[in-house]
């Protein structure tokens, strides 16, 4: 079955400049495809994972940027009385940039014990006691630490905030790894913030049987008569709304991913067509020696497949490594979308290149297999 594999390999190696250029082009396109895919996956994770659907965020009504939402902290007690609410965590948010940014720094201040209970955080360096024991201590998400070169023991300063790094954490929710957690009081009492008794948002953990929409309605109804009206949504809906502008942009980037697939197709198809045109006579000679037209077809499809797959593997591997090492994220108004590599994304990158390789080689291969031998042998 693979007796002609060395022939395919030697043919591609014999035209190595052309092969390498095609592989590089396909690799770059699949790299971009994977990168765009990771943004898409990050957004999907943020808005549709189970914890995002089972946690409510109470925010000041008609406010979007965390700097403009000011809720009384004692709302937590009133919300806790609503049936279906298991726990309420007051969160103070600080961000260096309310607009869309690739290097957004977001601080979340929350009671330490509640934070550990409500968030799935695992320290990969440092310890919790150092975090709990010092007022200006912070635990830093792995992605931020990676991006900013932060280690345990460092003093990290941004704007008016300066924290002592007590730990680096990982999380099963990649977006969490783009946050820096401090104690609630630290952010409330920090110079310039002046938020004593106020919080940006309240995060509500629901009981298993609770209906998120019904509880959200009841919370807003209960607080309507208070000094500040609220809007309560699931965390998924809250983040989708917060990142609405980016969602449109990411939706558009989705087309960029398709364009990359088209680019790989055009590139590999052009190379295969050129290769077939250059070797019309060679294919006729092979058929004269007794190679079946169907095998000529398969040999050409195999060449196209190898080029595309090699490009796909290189592009996917490069994207996976960069996404793993870079800790990239895009954020706006305190919410972040993490670009993370995933097995499904890598499989998609390789799968797409495999499929494109098959399709790109199909017509040139069919053409070569169907060209009359005598006519092809007469070509110079």
């Amino acid at each position, binding site marked *: 079955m693979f*007796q*002609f594999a*060395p*022939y395919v390999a*030697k*043919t591609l*190696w*014999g035209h190595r400049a052309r092969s390498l250029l095609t592989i590089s082009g396909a690799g770059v396109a699949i790299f971009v495809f994977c990168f765009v895919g990771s943004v898409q996956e990050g957004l999907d994770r943020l808005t549709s994972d189970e914890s995002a659907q089972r946690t409510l965020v109470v925010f000041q009504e008609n406010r979007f940027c965390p700097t403009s939402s000011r809720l009384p902290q004692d709302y937590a007690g009133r919300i806790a009385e609503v049936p279906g609410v298991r726990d309420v965590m007051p969160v103070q948010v600080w961000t260096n940039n309310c607009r869309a940014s690739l290097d957004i720094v977001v601080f979340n201040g929350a009671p330490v014990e509640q934070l550990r209970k409500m968030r799935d955080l695992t320290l990969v360096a440092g310890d919790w006691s150092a975090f709990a024991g010092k007022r200006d201590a912070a635990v830093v998400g792995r992605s931020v630490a990676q991006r900013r070169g932060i280690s345990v023991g460092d003093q990290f300063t941004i704007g008016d905030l300066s924290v002592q790094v007590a730990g680096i954490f990982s999380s099963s929710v990649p977006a969490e790894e783009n946050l820096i957690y401090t104690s609630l009081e630290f952010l409330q009492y920090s110079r310039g913030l002046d938020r004593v008794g106020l919080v940006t948002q309240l995060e509500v953990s629901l009981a298993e049987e609770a209906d998120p929409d019904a509880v959200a309605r009841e919370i807003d109804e209960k607080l309507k008569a208070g000094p500040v009206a609220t809007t309560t949504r699931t965390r998924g809906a809250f983040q989708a709304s917060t990142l609405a502008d980016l969602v449109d942009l990411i939706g558009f980037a989705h087309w960029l991913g398709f364009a990359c697939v088209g680019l790989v197709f055009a590139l590999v198809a052009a190379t295969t067509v050129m290769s077939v045109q250059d070797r019309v*006579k*060679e294919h006729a*000679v*092979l*058929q*004269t*020696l*007794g*190679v*079946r*037209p*169907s095998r000529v077809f398969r040999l050409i499809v195999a060449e196209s497949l190898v080029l595309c797959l090699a490009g796909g593997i290189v592009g996917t591997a490069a994207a996976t490594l960069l996404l793993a090492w870079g800790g990239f994220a895009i954020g706006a108004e305190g919410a972040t979308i993490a670009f993370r590599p995933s097995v499904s994304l890598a499989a998609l990158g390789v799968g797409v290149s495999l499929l494109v390789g098959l399709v790109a080689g199909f017509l040139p291969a069919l053409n070569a297999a169907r060209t*009359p*031998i*005598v006519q092809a*042998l007469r070509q110079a």
Partner: protein
Amino acid sequence: MALVEIRGLTKSFKKGGETIVPLDDVDLDVERGELVSMMGPSGTGKSTLLNAISGIDRPDSGTIFVDGVEITRLSRGKLADWRAANLGYIFQTHNLVPVLTAYENVELPTLLLPLSGSERRKRVELALEAVGLTDRADHYPRQLSGGQEQRVGVARAIVAHPKVVVADEPTGSLDTETSKQIQVLLRRLNEELGITLLMVTHDTEVAGIARRRLRLDQGKIVEVAGEFPRGATVSAI
């Protein structure tokens, strides 16, 4: 029964507004072990006949039997299988695969046969030895002279132990000295290995190595008796 039996073979094609009939109701028998040369002016259908016998071109009508198999009835795929097992083809312009070594070029037809690796190796080595190119096995076509390339082409044509070998102007692109070497080689293959060889040539000297000589003229085959005069032109025959 003759190894190759051709009956009523006709082939025509249109060129401009004119219908050309290079083969017109041709009959021909070639016996096992024969060395047959075919001459004739350009465009008289020599290559067309050779291509029809090889199964790479289809006649309009007529039948071709090779060792009892009516190849004119075989499908394209079946014809390819038949060629792999029964036919060797020597091209005028060698037509070696440029990215493969001499050894790999000769090995190509054996990849299509159900042979073990050791049998394949043995056959390739013997074929290369038969054409005197054992020491050039690892050379690529670009590293070989024209004569050496044609000898690789000959080795490739005989490596599968075909029933019949056809050669289309086997010395057409070679200088006189190299042409003579190829003539000797073809004669030796016929005499020593008993290979049935049908050869198309413009060169009377090359045609002279065949005991049986044919001439194609206006779509018909004519047997030519006696020796060709050395150095005579095709039109003089």
